[in-house]
């Protein structure tokens, strides 16, 4: 039986890696998750036959509760809310790793000091990932509205972290630990996760979630060492390193070093650069003229942002794009790496509306094409199309890669009102000579455009 168990874990680990590999290309991605899913079923199923197990009834109940709740919420959630769901499921993984460590610490019979040390480190990482992910969820869900920043915050965080390390070290020092010390350790670690996440702004949450994802992977790997479970070690480590790489890619796409994301409240440096308002004025356009402009264009590039998703306008925008294509207009979608709430989130939202992925282009692929475009239609995007990032060294977003929509012959911006973007920075683009503003709710504006294009 032992051989069969080990073989199953081996197969599961292999399936995870194959699955992840397949998920890294659009053509095979859909199959990839199924491979990984089979691996998970094999591993979970065989674990029931682990020698010397008890508590089967309660275990099955726990599986049903956790699995059932996650199944229900996962099926029901809106695509726009996907990031916070990933945060919460990820947090649960971290919590589970911490729970494994807690049980092992309470039992206290470690084979060697090394396992004790690994258990404690895994518990620390898992707890931080758990409580941090829950705060990230609450923020994205809108349960916590503001970033909590107060004087001396970093000192307090440091103190809590030091306290966590100290109790952790005490746990490592003693083979047999008292329950109260274990409890203190876990409370401190959980508290640190909360404190560390609270001051981070909503715009940076995706990077943080990705970081916690990598951390959970590491915690799982460490607890895998403790339990002598190769599948956990391999899957956890693979996720740990892959997640770290993803986190770096995301931070790079936002042009912010990771340390900056973690240790400075967003907006603090934006306020410092007192800016002059851009020159010129905003010029309005109505739906009829905008429709004419696009209907008789050769090439239109659509630049969607999170505002489009909030207005649920992606289906209308795709309908508009299809209409234009029927008229012989070449339509492409340009997506900034941080459009949406996570890199790739916007692609998911467009895909949901039925936009084929070969019409969607990355920043690097599309930027050279803007000068040839007759119209660039910006909907619900702001900071990612702000030319100040390229031209104005004083701007807080200076240096961030942007989509060069201002180089298109005409720019139409669909926008709710005259307000500033997520970062609170005035957008030079809106004041350019070739820019026209189409005010209104994203969905309404798109519907009007569709009606007008149909009449051409």
């Amino acid at each position, binding site marked *: 039986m032992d051989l069969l168990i080990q073989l199953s874990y081996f197969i599961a680990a292999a399936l995870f*890696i194959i699955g*992840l590999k397949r*998920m*890294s290309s*659009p053509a095979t991605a*859909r199959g*990839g*998750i199924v491979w*990984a899913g089979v691996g*998970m079923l094999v*591993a979970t199923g065989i674990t029931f036959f*682990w020698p010397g*197990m008890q508590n*089967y009834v*309660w*275990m099955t109940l*726990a*599986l049903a509760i*956790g699995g059932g709740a996650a199944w229900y*919420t*996962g099926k029901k959630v809106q*695509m726009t809310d996907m990031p916070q769901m*990933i945060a*919460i*499921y*990820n947090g*649960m*993984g971290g*919590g*589970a*790793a911490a*729970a*494994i460590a807690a049980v092992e610490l*309470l*039992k206290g019979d470690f084979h060697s000091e090394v396992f004790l040390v690994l258990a404690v480190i895994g518990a620390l990482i898992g707890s931080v990932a758990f409580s941090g992910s829950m705060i990230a969820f609450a923020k994205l869900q809108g349960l916590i509205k503001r970033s909590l920043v107060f004087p001396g915050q970093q000192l307090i965080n440091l103190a809590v972290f030091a306290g966590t390390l100290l109790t952790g070290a005490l746990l490592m020092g003693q083979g047999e630990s008292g*329950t109260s010390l274990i409890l203190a350790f876990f409370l401190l670690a959980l508290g640190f996760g909360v404190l560390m996440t609270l001051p981070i702004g909503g715009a940076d949450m995706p990077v943080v979630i990705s970081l916690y*994802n990598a951390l*959970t*992977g590491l915690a799982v790997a460490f*607890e*895998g060492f403790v*339990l002598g479970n190769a*599948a956990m*070690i*391999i899957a*956890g*480590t693979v*996720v740990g*390193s*892959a*997640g770290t*790489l*993803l986190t770096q890619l995301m931070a790079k796409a936002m042009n912010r070093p990771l340390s900056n994301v973690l240790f400075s409240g967003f907006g603090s440096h934006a306020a410092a650069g007192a800016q002059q308002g851009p020159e010129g004025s905003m010029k309005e356009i109505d739906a009829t003229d905008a429709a004419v402009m696009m209907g008789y264009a050769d090439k239109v590039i659509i630049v969607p942002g999170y505002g489009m998703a909030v207005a649920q306008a992606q289906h209308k925008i795709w309908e508009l794009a299809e209409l234009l294509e029927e008229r012989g207009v070449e339509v492409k979608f340009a997506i900034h790496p941080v459009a949406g709430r*996570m*890199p*790739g989130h916007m692609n998911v939202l467009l*895909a949901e509306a039925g936009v*084929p*992925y070969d019409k969607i282009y*990355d920043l690097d692929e599309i930027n050279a094409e803007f000068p040839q475009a007759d119209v660039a239609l910006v909907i619900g995007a702001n900071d990612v199309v702000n030319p100040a990032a390229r031209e104005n060294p004083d701007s807080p977003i200076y240096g961030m890669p942007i989509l060069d929509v201002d180089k298109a012959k005409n720019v139409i911006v669909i926008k709710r009102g005259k307000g500033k973007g997520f970062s609170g920075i005035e957008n030079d683009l809106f004041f350019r000579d070739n820019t026209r503003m189409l005010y209104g709710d994203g969905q309404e504006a798109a519907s009007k455009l569709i009606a007008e294009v149909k009449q051409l």
Partner: protein
Amino acid sequence: MIEGFTALYIFMLAAFTGYEVISRVPVILHTPLMSGSNFVHGIVLVGAMVAMGQADTGLEKLIGFIGVVLGAGNAVGGYVVTERMLEMFKSSKEAR
């Protein structure tokens, strides 16, 4: 049991594997892939089951129970949302 250097070798090779698998991923797949890797560390469920299965005292059983609930949530939730996201990726040839 996996001891000492064997464990270290597994750790190193798996770390490089993860890095290689992700390193050439188009941006459009970042979110699904993050979700997918989130599902993969749902394997923690297996560990939680073992920990609960070997728990003796009431407190250990309770913590094990919580661990299995959380682990199952990670695995199932991670699968469902990843599958839903990837379901939507179609090229224009397939769509028509």
